[in-house]
């Protein structure tokens, strides 16, 4: 029999015992709905977690360090490849090379140094770090008072909240209520800071020509004390210990400005024997990829160049494993209801065989083959599965919306921002319906086989 004929006959037969078939279909719907609800919750929660991570700016970032770094990650895979001694130094050409790699959005040096900052003639020693313009969208600067840097090379600074407290002499006593960021920002925004730092000046020509000190030519540079005035443009409410990378500092400068200052960095001393010019050598480079999905490929490519690379992806592997287990559990619980529903299908179809025994006999007598009868029962099971699947997906989606709405009402009462932790992606819709179809067809196997094997003579005798 042709597929349209099968479908038509199957739907007709389903309409014949409408109540029973509807109940069976409702059973499948409930099963699919529970599956969809469970998995949407899992997916939604994972998406929420990922969204937070991506927004933090760490999910798409690879931190590249030289293998010569003694405080390298020391992970297993890094023991292979070139030994630390042969490894290249992280300098400007390397940074440019990495930035030219496909899928890389930007590569910028992590400039971080401890130095003295003067505010109203009082010296404060703190950690300073450079930020690229792209950091503006970073989640860490959410709720920042003031504004982000006006340009990449503007003489401006953003302060971390605790440093602002320090400047104002308002460091709260232990256990006391934390002061509000906006209160701290008011007296500081627009004020001037003076940064006193050590500049690495170019090496004198005489030293470079010296043949006796050939190997140490890079060491031949001088250090000059400089001052740089900075305007405070923002105070950020971020916890310096909560994240890796540049945010651990307490004062932030625009990247181009920081680069132009040629601040003497700790790595300069370590690279003394290697650097053959006054080219700056970076302790680490942050690489941002265009899409978090491409992070692995870029990371591998950088490792092939002979550098150590670390991304939060490595750290999030555990998280993803957790979600995989969560999916499995939610999926199993969701499927249980569908399994119960599949017993309903078997029951309904076996009953249908008993009721329609004579009809099966007639069909066989007028020329239906075993295959035709089998296909007809399969089509009925499949139709119930697809109908149940569609209704179930809609039901599951509705349940999700209601739960999402309810939770958000609760969150709002707790004065927390609303969250979207419920997601029904298209692939879930498709695979839920497909799964319902497969479960129904499997359930239909036994009844269909039994109907097909029915002896027509006995079936026709049956009243």
């Amino acid at each position: 029999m042709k597929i349209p004929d099968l479908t038509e006959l199957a739907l007709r037969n389903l309409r014949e015992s409408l109540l029973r078939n509807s109940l069976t279909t409702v059973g499948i719907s409930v099963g699919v709905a529970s599956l969809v609800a469970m998995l949407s919750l899992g997916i939604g929660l994972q998406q929420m977690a990922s969204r937070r991570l991506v927004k933090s700016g760490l999910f798409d970032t690879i931190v590249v360090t030289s293998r010569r770094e003694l405080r390298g990650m020391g992970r297993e895979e890094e023991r292979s490849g070139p030994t630390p001694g042969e490894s290249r130094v992280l300098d400007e050409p390397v940074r440019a090379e990495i930035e030219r790699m496909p899928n890389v959005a930007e590569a910028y040096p992590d400039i971080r140094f401890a130095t003295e900052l003067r505010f109203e003639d009082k010296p404060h020693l703190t950690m300073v770090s450079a930020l690229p313009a792209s950091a503006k969208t970073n989640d860490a600067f959410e709720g920042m008072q003031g504004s982000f840097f006006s340009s990449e090379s503007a003489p401006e600074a953003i302060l971390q909240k605790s440093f602002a407290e320090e400047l104002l002499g308002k460091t709260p006593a232990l256990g006391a209520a934390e002061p509000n960021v906006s209160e701290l920002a008011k007296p500081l925004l627009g004020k001037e800071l003076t940064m006193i730092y050590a500049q690495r000046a170019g090496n004198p020509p005489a030293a470079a020509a010296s043949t006796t000190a050939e190997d140490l030519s890079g060491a031949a540079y001088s250090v000059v004390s400089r001052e740089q005035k900075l305007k405070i443009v923002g105070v950020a409410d971020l916890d310096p210990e909560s994240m890796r990378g540049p945010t651990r500092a307490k004062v932030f400068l625009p990247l181009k400005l920081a680069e132009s200052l040629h601040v003497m960095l700790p790595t300069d001393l370590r690279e003394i024997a290697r650097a053959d010019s006054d080219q700056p050598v970076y302790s680490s480079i942050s690489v941002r990829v265009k899409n978090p999905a491409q992070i692995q490929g870029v990371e591998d490519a950088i490792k092939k160049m002979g550098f150590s690379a670390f991304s939060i992806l490595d750290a999030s592997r555990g998280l993803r494993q957790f979600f995989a287990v969560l999916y499995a559990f939610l999926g199993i619980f969701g499927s249980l209801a569908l399994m119960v529903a599949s017993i309903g299908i078997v029951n309904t179809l076996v009953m249908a065989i008993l009721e329609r025994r004579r009809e099966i006999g007639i069909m066989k007598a007028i020329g239906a083959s075993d295959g035709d009868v089998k296909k007809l029962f399969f089509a009925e099971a499949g139709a119930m599965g697809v109908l149940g699947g569609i209704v179930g997906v809609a039901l599951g989606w509705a349940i999700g919306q209601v739960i999402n709405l309810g939770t958000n009402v609760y969150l709002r009462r707790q004065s927390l921002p609303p969250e979207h932790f419920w997601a029904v992606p298209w692939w879930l819709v498709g695979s839920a319906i497909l799964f319902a179809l497969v479960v129904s067809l499997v359930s239909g196997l036994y009844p269909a086989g039994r109907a097909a094997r029915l002896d027509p003579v006995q079936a026709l005798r049956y009243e």
Partner: protein
Amino acid sequence: MTTVPAVSAERGTFAIRSENLCRYYRMGESLIRAVDGVSLEIGAGEFVALLGSSGSGKSSVLNLIAGLDRPTSGSVMVQDRDLAKLSREELAKYRLHVVGMVFQSFNLIASMTVAENVELPLRFAEVDRNRRQKLAHEALERVGLQARMNHRPSELSGGEQQRAALARALINRPQLLLADEPTGNLDSHTGSEIMDAVRDFNRELGMTVLMVTHERALAERYARRMIFLADGKLVDDRQNPPVDVRSGMQRGRP
């Protein structure tokens, strides 16, 4: 009682030939010999009545010829097909294309309209919709039921239902029409109408008709040959006397 060899003079071929055909059933400890060594030959285009009392095995013979059942031993040949050797699939095809069946209880599917019932065999034959509807319409026209084609069987009288069943049996243009007590559930007037239609099929379409009945009068009126069964055995096989009150003038092929 004269036994005439069942040779179809017109075509010289056998439509049906059985040899020592047996069908036994086991019922608990006892063995029931429903068909017990029946050998017969029916020529193409014949109109044969299979007579016997209830339990004589006439329906069992019909089912074996229809390919609904398989013999315990012996053979049934229908148009050079050995039915015992066909696979289940081939038997289904045989039932679909070679045989048309009519039953005592009509056996229409209650959930379908008359037209849908009639075209059902064409669905199994994978005939496309338009052609199916055209053929069903023609078949219903032939049995004079075109006005009732969109009714459900339950809305039809017994005679109309049997005519619908005839149309269904006709739709695949089978060479063999097997009828199992086709008038058993009908009054004599309606029964005659049905039998007239069956005789038309036999004469005009050249279909070989094998009809099971226990009504000797009916068999004598329409069939040209009568085969008698008792206890699963063939006890008599005779040509019908050429006297026919109603249509004696038309005896023979048109």
